[in-house]
């Protein structure tokens, strides 16, 4: 390796590779442990200083110690070396530490290919449009550095950088059609080849299969899209936008749980729909669970899905892929109006639970005549007493319901749903907690609704004789004055929202417009690129008129189109273009024509120099430009110039000839 004294004397190839590695590492920084982020940046910096000639590389023992130590640290952090997060961290570690022993062309290859690998792992964390654009840029840079390594001794210089980037971009553009054909026609194998690690797509949902109000004091506010909905007809009013998700009925005094339960057929439910059906299509983001979401109450079950006995839609497989399904729901309905199956479990409570609340409930029961009135009385209680809605409630310790109802009185949907359901059960009314999403905003620029993770919600369902399961949302009774501004609920209560909007400056509103446009674009991206799968592939081919698709026809089609595209590209690459110098001659002829108009005509046997001397004598006014053009012409014709210099000179020459006054 060469040693220079200034940063500018880094071999160009190394400089580009280091920049490439830095760009590969950057998107990983947010989810890496802090020490690994720091370490990888430090190694990169060290290597840069080494290439500039300031520091030596660590010796072999230090390197081995570093590898051992960091693998131990990884094990301590993740308790494993496989899986999405730990595996990515391990690869990244290998990539950066390899920089310490990058000496031969072989090491460079290892770094480059590891770089590509780590780049791909970033897609496990984000497949956004931005990420794709970014990656394309980084790949072009890495390819350019591969080209630079063909000139191992070249020092960093702008003109060479340009040259290699230009060639890399040309390769990229020529490769793009092939890559697109492969993307569209390569047989998509559904499902994982081996077991997906548990963290394959963890942390993507605002919902969980258990709920413990008071354990987490702060709701993560994340506005990631949960799913998008396209309605066939009218959009249901905001008050009816309850998206049913996991239903919890098992309560142990602190925690609500869903329960693996039997699956029932839709016919086994006694569901009486109302008048107006809502037809719509849901595009669900992958969340690595089986839950499907539908507007309360769905009447159809999508293919590959089933209903639990709590009337919850479940897919047969975990959803690791964008999933699109058609639904029909009735926003007015009667569910199991006459007869309730499994009543016991909807009234079950641990003994000794929430004694103070029990007293309150007994008091309310005394005052009321019917379950309907009791429900109203409890809701009134929440509305009248100083209950607040906040995203940052205090922690609850001993008996969460008692503490919440009588002491803290601050909480979000889970607190209210949990307390309400417990109170109903204390009164002997069957009740359960339903979680899901509440709300959804229409994208005004495209005709669909966006439901975000921040719309996650929990409410209650009580069973009333003659009316069946009735949805009660105790959070909804909290008056807007007691809702913390900025809380998610505020976004969903229309009056609060308009109050908020009025206060917002114009730029905030246009920002929201831009956000909608962006989401519309992302929606397309999600559906056509990220969500491209076997089903979509088949649909596309059918649309193209290819009906009986099996993998054999697909491979044949793939090969035929690939070969055809490759032939076209080969023709473009090998086409006989103008030999360098031809353009020079054409420009010179143009110059001669301009002079001929002034009456100076070059004799066939006259050399360029002789002619120039004669022309200067006849037209002393433009002597300088005649001399300059002749000089440039001779240089371009006869001097040994490399490509870059030739390009520059030719540009000058062309400009001089064009500006020459004929």
């Amino acid at each position, binding site marked *: 390796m060469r040693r220079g004294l200034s940063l500018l004397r880094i071999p160009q190839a190394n400089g580009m590779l280091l920049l490439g590695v830095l760009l590969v590492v950057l998107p990983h920084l947010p989810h890496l442990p802090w020490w690994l982020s720091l370490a990888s940046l430090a190694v990169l910096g060290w290597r840069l200083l080494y290439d500039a000639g300031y520091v030596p590389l660590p010796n072999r023992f230090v390197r081995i110690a570093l590898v051992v130590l960091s693998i131990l640290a990884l094990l301590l952090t993740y308790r494993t070396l496989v899986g999405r997060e730990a595996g990515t961290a391990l690869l990244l570690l290998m990539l950066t530490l390899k920089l310490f022993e990058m000496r031969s062309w072989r090491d460079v290859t290892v770094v480059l290919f590891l770089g*590509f*690998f780590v780049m791909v792992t970033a897609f496990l964390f984000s497949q956004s449009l931005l990420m794709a654009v970014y990656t394309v840029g980084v790949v072009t840079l890495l390819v350019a550095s591969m080209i630079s390594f063909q000139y191992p001794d070249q020092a960093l210089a702008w003109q060479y950088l340009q040259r290699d980037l230009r060639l890399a971009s040309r390769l990229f553009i020529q490769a793009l059609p092939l890559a697109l054909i492969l993307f569209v026609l390569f047989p998509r194998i559904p499902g994982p080849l081996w077991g997906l690690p548990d963290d394959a797509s963890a942390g993507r949902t605002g919902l969980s299969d258990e709920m413990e109000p008071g354990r987490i004091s702060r709701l993560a506010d994340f506005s990631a899209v949960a799913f998008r909905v396209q309605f066939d007809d009218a959009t249901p009013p905001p008050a009816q936008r309850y998206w049913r998700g996991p239903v919890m009925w098992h309560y142990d005094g602190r925690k609500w749980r869903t329960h693996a339960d039997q699956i029932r057929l839709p016919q086994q439910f006694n569901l009486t729909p109302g008048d107006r059906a809502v037809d719509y299509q849901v595009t669900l983001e992958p969340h690595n669970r089986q839950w499907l979401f539908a507007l309360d109450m769905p009447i159809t079950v999508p293919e590959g899905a089933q209903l639990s006995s709590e009337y919850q839609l479940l897919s047969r497989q975990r959803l690791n892929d964008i999933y699109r399904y058609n639904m029909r729901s009735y926003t007015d309905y009667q569910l199991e109006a006459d007869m309730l199956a499994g009543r016991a479990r909807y009234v079950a409570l641990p003994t000794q639970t929430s004694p103070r609340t029990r007293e309150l409930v007994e008091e309310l029961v005394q005052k009321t005549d019917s379950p309907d009135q009791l429900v109203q009385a409890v809701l009134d209680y929440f509305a009248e007493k100083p209950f607040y809605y906040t995203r940052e409630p205090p922690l609850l310790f001993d008996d969460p319901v008692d503490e919440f109802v009588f002491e803290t009185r601050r909480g979000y949907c889970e607190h209210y749903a949990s307390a309400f359901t417990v109170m109903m059960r204390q009164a002997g009314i069957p009740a359960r907690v339903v979680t899901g999403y509440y709300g959804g905003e229409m994208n005004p620029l495209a005709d669909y609704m966006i439901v975000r993770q921040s719309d996650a919600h929990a409410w209650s369902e009580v069973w009333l004789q003659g009316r069946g399961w009735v949805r009660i949302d105790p959070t909804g009774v909290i008056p807007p004055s007691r809702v913390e501004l900025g809380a998610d609920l505020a976004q969903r209560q229309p009056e609060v929202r308009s109050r908020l909007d009025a206060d917002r400056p114009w730029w905030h509103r246009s920002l929201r417009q831009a956000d909608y446009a962006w989401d519309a674009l992302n929606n397309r991206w999600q559906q056509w690129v990220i969500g491209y799968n076997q089903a979509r592939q088949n649909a596309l081919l059918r649309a193209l008129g290819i009906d009986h698709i099996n993998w054999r026809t697909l491979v044949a089609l793939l090969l035929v189109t690939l070969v055809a595209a490759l032939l076209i590209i080969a023709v473009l*690459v090998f086409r006989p273009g103008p030999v360098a110098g031809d353009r020079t001659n054409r420009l010179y002829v143009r110059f001669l024509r301009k002079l001929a108009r002034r009456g100076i005509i070059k004799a066939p046997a006259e050399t360029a120099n002789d002619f120039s001397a004669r022309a200067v004598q006849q037209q002393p006014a433009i002597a300088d430009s005649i001399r300059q053009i002749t000089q440039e012409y001779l240089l371009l014709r006869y001097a040994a110039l490399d490509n870059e210099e030739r390009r520059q000179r030719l540009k000058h020459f062309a400009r001089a000839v064009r500006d020459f006054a004929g």
Partner: protein
Amino acid sequence: MPPVSLAQRFNLARFFQGDTPSPAPWTLHRGNVYILPTRQGVFFAVTLVVILLGAINYNNSLGYFLTFLLGSIAVVGILHTYRNLLQLQVRVAHIEPVFAGGEVVVPIVLNNPGPAQRNRVALGFADQAPCQHEIPSGRHTVVRLYRPATARGRQPLGRFTLSSTFPLGLFRAWSHVVPDEYYLVYPAPAADARLPQTSLYMASLLGDHGIGSDDFAGLRGYRSGDSLKHVHWKALAREQGLLTKQFGGDRSQRLWLDWRMLEGTGSETRLSQLCRWVIEAEQQGMEYGLWLPDQIIEPGRGPQHQQQCLQALALFG
């Protein structure tokens, strides 16, 4: 493109050694440029397969896309690597003869008639590390290769190889050129620089007819081809016309270098000694002739004469 039969196309010997010697110039075309992945290329393919498996397993669309993109870039790279050699024209310029033990300079002219610059074209004999060159569009480059001159005589130039891994280093295109060219190696001059005794002079063999250059013998009319040095300029100045001065040879300095004088040693040793004598005699400005069992070169001097003698020594036997 010369016709290449199917059997020839799949001839492994051509693949490894190139064609049989053919006369210049050589043009690289589809029939004689080969391309295969380098070790990096194979490694790259393995990496892509692993990435693809990952993409399939995680059902990651962009992972698929990136794999395909990288693969396609490599495939397009094949075309670029191949084009980097295609249509190059190769010629061997004049090779100066050397003495055995020295180094032959082989100037090879690479001409690029195509529209694109050829980058990093490596050129070298089979057993040497190649050197890399750029050849701009529409121009030619002269590359000097060196090879040790071991044995005396007319030596076949042997196979040299043009190759390139430009631009990505994942594939290597190459073409063997087996030129029908030879270079001449004179015998290595012996260390003993003493010239043979003049007593070995054999005056009676040849008369002198005024073609020597030492003693003035008289004037005659100028004939075209006479050396300007011998023109009698003073006579011209006196307007006596162009006259050429004639010289007779210096008998005492005339030397025969004779194979037979070196009785009792091997023929290569004799040739080495004769070679040394030729060089010495030429340096001392003597007039010398060479007597070999198969060839007699009349006495003379000057670079051309020396070359003639050395060539006779080189090709002896």
